[in-house]
């Protein structure tokens, strides 16, 4: 990319390596890598991501059968774990470390170096001023030392016979810059720890049930690659109560506040504690954070089969379809005799017929109604592959019909029982209980990442707002006829990467110098 690209022939491997290293750790490479990182992040916001929304991803894949294999090859469904994305940021990190470490040494040397000697001609510098003073050369220089010291400048030790003062400030800028860049690495290490050793999981839990923190109780569980099961905190909680407050707004009725009352023990035998789990108010038990992230209704349904045995009973979480809390759910009872029974349908929390259409007019469970279709036959539950509890496999099942030959629909209010045709059994809608979706996570290294970002921010502010400057003041016995006048030259230089306007600073310093006790006389 640059003109000094060597021709491979006249380089030995060692030199080539050094050349490559220099290129990699150059500022320009950092810039290009940063831009590449920005660009590389874009596809992940356009194409659905496996790790963000797996359902949407699989739908997209179903809709785009030709593109899917290509995208899969390019890891476009998991951009942020893809080899090419990783390559960019790993290169960036290598470049960063390769850039920062040498700079640290340069910096360490620089802080031990006194401010440099004054340029021969101060008036050649962009920002300079000159005036005549009645004070003697020594007095002017002494005054300059005091003023500059008072302003936080470090001075070059006076040498015999030198006619100037050299001062510098803003050494911390470089520290800020180094701290910032190193903190970026710290943040990434913290992040990496979290994703390697942590886990995320969730479970839908109906009110009244108890949850013991073992992996088998989770509905979904994503461990990091170095996670080990003995990291699981041995807590147990019961979900005792659920409160929700509904509010009518012009966008419909919204759940304004909801909380789940939990009774928990940190470990078996420990003291019982209580917590009202709410959105935005997670509970920490040991290293695990527990979050409330959703809620819904679980109708308690009892199924008895044709032989009169109770084959299914309990709260069945139904999933809300939208904010009206019209909810969809499934019941599977594979053990029923003479045939398996599968139920699928909707729960209307506050049912009402509006112009012949079944609707739910309020999300609270004021008048719940279950509306179910019935299937029998093979529900596909014999195969060992795990099946979603929210999906009924109807491939080999048949829908049960009513005596008019139309698909049977059971409409049940609380307490009602329906008898299924063909001696299949009965279905009873006992009650409705709330469920909550609770998310669990362990994120080791999160403190490291947090400390990292905070340090990065502090370092960045130092690096952006501390202005490194050099100031020189030179005094010479004057050219005035009687020789009593001292000619003073002051120059200032801003050493930050732009954005520094030293003119006002220079002006201030000059004013301060000239307000010195000995009377001064302005000469142009």
């Amino acid at each position, binding site marked *: 990319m640059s003109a000094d690209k060597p021709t491979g022939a006249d380089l030995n491997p060692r030199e080539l390596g050094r050349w490559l290293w220099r290129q990699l750790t150059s*500022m*320009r490479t*950092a*810039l290009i890598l*940063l*831009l590449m*990182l920005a660009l590389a*992040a*874009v596809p*992940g*916001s356009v194409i*659905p*991501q496996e790790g*963000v929304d797996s*359902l*949407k991803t699989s739908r997209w894949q179903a809709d785009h059968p030709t593109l899917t294999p290509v995208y899969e090859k390019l890891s476009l469904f998991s951009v942020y774990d893809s080899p090419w994305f990783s390559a960019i940021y790993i290169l960036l990190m290598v470049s960063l470390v390769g850039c920062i470490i040498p700079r640290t040494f340069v910096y360490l040397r620089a802080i031990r170096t006194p401010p440099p000697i004054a340029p021969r001609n101060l008036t050649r510098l*962009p*920002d300079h*001023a000159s005036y005549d003073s009645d004070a003697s050369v020594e007095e002017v220089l002494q005054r300059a030392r005091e003023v500059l010291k008072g302003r936080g400048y470090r001075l070059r030790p006076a040498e015999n016979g030198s006619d100037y003062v050299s001062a510098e400030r803003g050494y911390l800028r470089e520290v800020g810059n180094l701290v910032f860049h190193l903190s970026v690495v710290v943040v990434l290490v913290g992040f990496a720890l*979290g994703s390697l050793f942590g886990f*995320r999981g969730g479970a839908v839990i109906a009110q009244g049930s108890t949850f013991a923190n073992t992996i088998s109780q989770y509905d979904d569980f994503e461990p990091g690659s170095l996670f080990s099961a003995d990291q699981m905190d041995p807590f147990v909680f019961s979900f005792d109560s659920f409160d929700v407050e509904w*509010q009518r*707004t*012009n*966008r*419909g009725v919204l*759940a*304004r506040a909801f909380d789940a009352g939990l009774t928990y023990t940190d470990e078996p035998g420990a003291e019982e504690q209580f917590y009202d789990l709410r*959105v*935005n108010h*997670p509970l920490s038990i040991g290293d695990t*954070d527990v*979050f409330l*992230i959703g809620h819904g209704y679980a109708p308690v349904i009892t199924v008895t089969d044709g032989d009169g045995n109770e084959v299914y009973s309990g709260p069945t979480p139904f*999933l*809300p*379809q*939208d*904010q*009206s809390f019209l909810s*969809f759910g499934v019941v599977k009872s594979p053990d029923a005799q003479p045939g398996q029974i599968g139920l699928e349908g909707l729960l209307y929390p506050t049912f009402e017929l509006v112009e012949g259409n079944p*609707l739910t007019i309020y999300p609270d469970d004021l008048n719940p109604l279950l509306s179910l279709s019935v299937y029998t036959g093979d529900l596909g539950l014999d195969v060992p592959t795990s099946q*979603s509890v*929210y999906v009924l496999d109807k491939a080999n099942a048949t829908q049960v019909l009513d005596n008019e030959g139309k698909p049977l629909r059971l409409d049940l209010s609380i307490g009602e029982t329906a008898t299924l045709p063909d001696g299949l059994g009965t279905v009873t809608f006992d009650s409705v209980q709330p469920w909550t979706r609770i*998310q669990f*996570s362990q*994120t080791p290294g999160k403190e490291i990442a*947090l400390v990292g*970002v905070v340090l990065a*921010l502090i370092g960045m*502010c130092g690096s*952006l707002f501390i202005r490194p400057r050099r100031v020189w003041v030179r005094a010479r016995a004057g050219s005035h006829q009687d020789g009593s006048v001292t000619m003073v030259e002051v120059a200032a230089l801003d050493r930050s*990467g*732009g*954005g520094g*306007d030293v*003119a006002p600073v220079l*002006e201030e310093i*000059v004013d301060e110098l000239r307000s010195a006790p000995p009377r001064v006389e302005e000469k*142009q």
Partner: protein
Amino acid sequence: MTNAAWETLSDQAIGVSGVVYFLALLAHLVEWSSLRGTVPVDAAAASSTRSRAAVGAVAVATGPTEGAGSGTEESRQRVALFGRLGLLLTMIAAVVHLTSLVGRGMAADPNRVPWGNMYEFTLSGTFVVTLMYLVLYRRFALSWMAPIVVAFVLSMLMVAVIWLHSAVTPLTEALNSYWLVIHVVAAVIATGAFTLGGMTSAMWLVKNRKGDIATGPLARVPSLATLDRVSYRIHAFGFPVWTFAVLITGPIWAHEAWSSYWNWDPKEVWAFITWVVYAAYLHARSTAGWKGKNAAILALVGLATLWFNFIGINFFSTTSQHSYADSAPSVVQPVGQPVGQPVGQR
């Protein structure tokens, strides 16, 4: 006052402030049209003791009076008068604008910060742009920016009122957190700063094309060196604030509300892209060969990603948990749930 009264007040106030912004724009246009044909004053007169070797050794034309050039006394006075009038009107508009914001917050039950949806975010963001412009007006001699800022704010307000307006609703549960205050305040402030910085960079590019020493209206725009410096300073202010908003408070809040610090949600992705582009901008500033023009272009790319993230993502992306404007609260949707057609009242 009732909530409905507050909401009406807010809606009326935004209309009034729009009208006042419009008057301010007119005043600035008159001011600028009076400038035609004038040539810049040599600002060297301002300081006789120092010389500047920077590119723009000439006019650092600043405040409304200074920039009037060597036109006739009468036209100079006109320029000054209308410049001041425009500034005054902008201040009044800003106060009314603020009233509207307060009204939005008071209209909600319970009262809340006025940035719960895109309409409110646009109102807040534009208010911050105006406020920062007014605050920095003297410090950075921003009078040249007046028509641009006012026109921008006015058009964004029109967009907000026409397309984004929505009635006051309470915050959804996930948004109901004091992190909303911290996170969004920081994001809005950074957005305001980057927007101003973008205007300066754009002007740098325009001026760079036309040559530094132009006559007519462009002469009032500060020199390339000054523009460059102001632009850097504004971005240098915005960048840490943005970092704080999207890389510190954002993840903390996301963790509390959604249980994960960083989820590569589209909104997060674009906030990250914006951050990286501005980091590149700051790098470009200190890399020879990338200074000036390339840096200014990067600043504008950053601004584009910023505004795309704000407006575009909310419209185009359905997966974003952040598209809080019109979707059902994400919090009621457990993972893997089939999403059906909405039934019932909307």
